[in-house]
């Protein structure tokens, strides 16, 4: 009985956005399309929640387990709130004629297609199917980044397309190598691509092939995660695309790519003779963290700055998962959730700010707490949260990570703390200019528009003050499965 409910939920999770993309491509008026987009995302979220309660039987293509339900629920939640934000955002873009009604039809269809691709990547049990889904997600975001057709947007989209394709090509090569390693043991055909079989039987695989494959996979999917030094597409894509897409990129797509990496890490973990992938992930994570911290100082564009902050946080999360063990995995999982919520909230705020001020240049934006107090203070809270100050959830996860790192390798912890401090001081420095200072401007923005942002920050604050016992138990259980 439970399994059949689960099957229905899984069909809902994948079917809703797939059908939604078709429907939205046909709906001409954005007044209908925007609420419809929200409704579809709500349905997807409901399906994901149902999947948490009822699991379908795993098949060779699709699998719902403890690990991907966390990613699914966080992902569909951010997808839903972003669609609410997007409804208000695009109405303004239409007024200012930056987008035409025709563009919006395209935009909404692509939004649903992106949701479909990400959900598919998360629930796929076949490493080839997962690759296809991530490729699809990349392509949809590429066209959305280029939707404004300004010089900068085109360059950003082109760069994203080229670097993303190169990354995805490397990932495919890695996937082929994993298949080669597996087919010796599991026989030719579809079985040797089913992830659950791979993870269960990896002890017998050829370790040399697995080692080599992980290098390709780390570089390939790492490009999509935005790890330095293969991060170059990320700031441009965030800065030049529509802001809802920046929120989805940071809150969702980066996590999905990281999830793919974790799946392969688990395959590696089952074989005692391979080199542990941990050190590679820790190194890349640490480089991203420190590098992005320094880069935040020199940004002039507000969206670009928060894009670098995303690189920083993805670095932290990769480091946590690379470190492994129950505590670090728990911290990584919590940090991923908190970062998704906080960063998308910040992008919601930044979207309104750039619309109200008519610019993304930080030098031209001052005194937001005076010109639009509610928005200004929410932004302050968001930046305080992302910088890792208490009482927000990001602090909790960073604290957990630092303490668990100290216990295991103190030198690494020192580097980690230095990286965190660099990013922290850069963000507070920039925040001061944005939020405070004299300004003569007054903006009006209906308070209800800020509801998604307030909701996210409320959740992050609540998690920082008191993390409910069931959530802790759930995350602890998932962390124990991550090896």
């Amino acid at each position, binding site marked *: 009985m439970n399994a059949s409910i689960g099957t229905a939920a899984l069909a809902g999770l994948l079917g809703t956005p797939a059908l939604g993309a078709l429907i939205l491509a046909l709906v001409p008026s954005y007044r209908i399309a925007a609420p419809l987009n929200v409704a579809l995302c709500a349905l997807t979220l409901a399906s994901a929640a149902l999947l948490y309660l009822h699991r379908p039987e795993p098949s060779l293509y699709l699998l719902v387990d403890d690990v991907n339900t966390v990613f699914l629920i966080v992902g569909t939640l951010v997808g839903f709130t972003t669609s609410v934000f997007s409804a208000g955002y695009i109405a303004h873009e239409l007024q200012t004629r930056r987008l035409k009604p025709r563009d919006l039809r395209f935009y909404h269809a692509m939004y649903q297609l992106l949701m479909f691709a990400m959900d598919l990547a998360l629930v796929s049990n076949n490493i080839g199917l997962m690759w296809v889904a991530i490729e699809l997600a990349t*392509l949809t975001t590429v066209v959305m980044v280029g939707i404004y057709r300004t010089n900068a947007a085109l360059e950003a989209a082109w760069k994203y397309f080229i670097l993303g*394709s*190169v990354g995805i090509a490397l990932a495919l090569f890695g996937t082929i190598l994993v298949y080669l390693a597996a087919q010796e043991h599991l026989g030719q*055909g579809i079985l040797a*691509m089913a992830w659950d079989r791979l993870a269960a039987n990896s002890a017998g695989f050829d370790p*040399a092939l697995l*080692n080599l494959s992980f290098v390709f996979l780390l570089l390939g999917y790492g490009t999509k995660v935005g790890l330095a030094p293969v991060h170059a597409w990320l700031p441009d894509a965030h800065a030049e695309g529509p802001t809802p897409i920046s929120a989805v990129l940071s809150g969702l797509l980066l996590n999905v790519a990281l999830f793919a990496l974790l799946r392969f890490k688990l395959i590696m973990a089952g074989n005692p003779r391979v080199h542990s992938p941990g050190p590679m992930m820790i190194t890349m994570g640490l480089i991203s963290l420190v590098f992005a911290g320094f880069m935040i100082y020199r940004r002039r*564009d507000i969206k670009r700055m928060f894009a670098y902050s995303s690189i920083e946080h993805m670095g932290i999360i990769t480091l946590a998962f690379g470190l492994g063990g129950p505590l670090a995995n728990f911290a990584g999982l919590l940090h991923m959730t908190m970062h998704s919520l906080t960063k998308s909230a910040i992008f919601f705020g930044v979207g309104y700010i750039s619309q109200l001020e008519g610019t993304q240049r930080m030098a031209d934006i001052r005194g937001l707490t005076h010109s639009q107090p509610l928005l200004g203070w929410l932004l302050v809270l968001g930046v305080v949260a992302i910088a890792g100050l208490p009482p927000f959830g990001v602090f909790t996860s960073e604290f957990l990570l630092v303490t668990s790192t100290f216990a295991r390798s103190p030198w690494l912890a020192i580097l980690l703390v230095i990286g965190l401090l660099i990013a922290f001081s850069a963000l507070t420095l920039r925040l001061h200019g944005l939020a405070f200072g004299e300004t003569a401007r007054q903006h009006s923005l209906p308070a209800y528009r800020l509801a998604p942002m307030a909701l996210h920050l409320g959740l992050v604050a609540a998690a920082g003050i008191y993390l409910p016992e069931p959530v802790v138990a759930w995350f602890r259980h998932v962390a124990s499965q991550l090896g």
Partner: protein
Amino acid sequence: MTPLDSDIAHLLAGSMVLVSFLLLYQDRMFALLNFFALHACVLAFSVGWQAYLQRAPHLFITALIALVFKGVIIPVALHRIVVRLGIHRTIETVVSIGPTMLFGIALVGLSIVVMLPVTQAAGAFVREDLAFALSVVLLGFLMMVTRRNAVSQVIGFMSLENGLVLAATGARGMPLVVEISVGFSVLIAFIVVGIFLFRIRERFDTVDLQALDMSRGESGS
């Protein structure tokens, strides 16, 4: 499998590496397109031979896709785009040929050094095939790095994808899903690229990516 069978397979896979080298130093648009068509044709034969050897008829579909789609349709379409954009006379300033070729040779050496010891267990035939495939992939990367023009970057990318298809067919019995998806992704990629080229044309009257670099968000003010 007789020695002759595997020799032919090696010959075809090796020819792909050779054509990749040829692509690397073409500095005229049309010549580049022609050599890309050749690249795709060699791929088609290579995949077709694998299909015959492995008794895997579905691989013939992959070969057919490579022959018709990458060997004919895409080169013809790109040919038209190049004419329409008026860049057919353009002689590209590739990073000078000598160093590029030397670097390419080094990459082929690297892929052989990396792949051969690692794939000891995988059988003699698969491992050479994989080493060739990795060489094609790396040469595709090199081409994307050394070119400035958007059209030649796309060709570099597609030659890279050809290398991936070669690798996927070399891995015995890899499910069809993946091969079709590879073809499919190229198709989608191509559409996306096509749209981009036209939009880029609208804005700048050039497909030289250097012009795009000027509009980077960071530079100036």
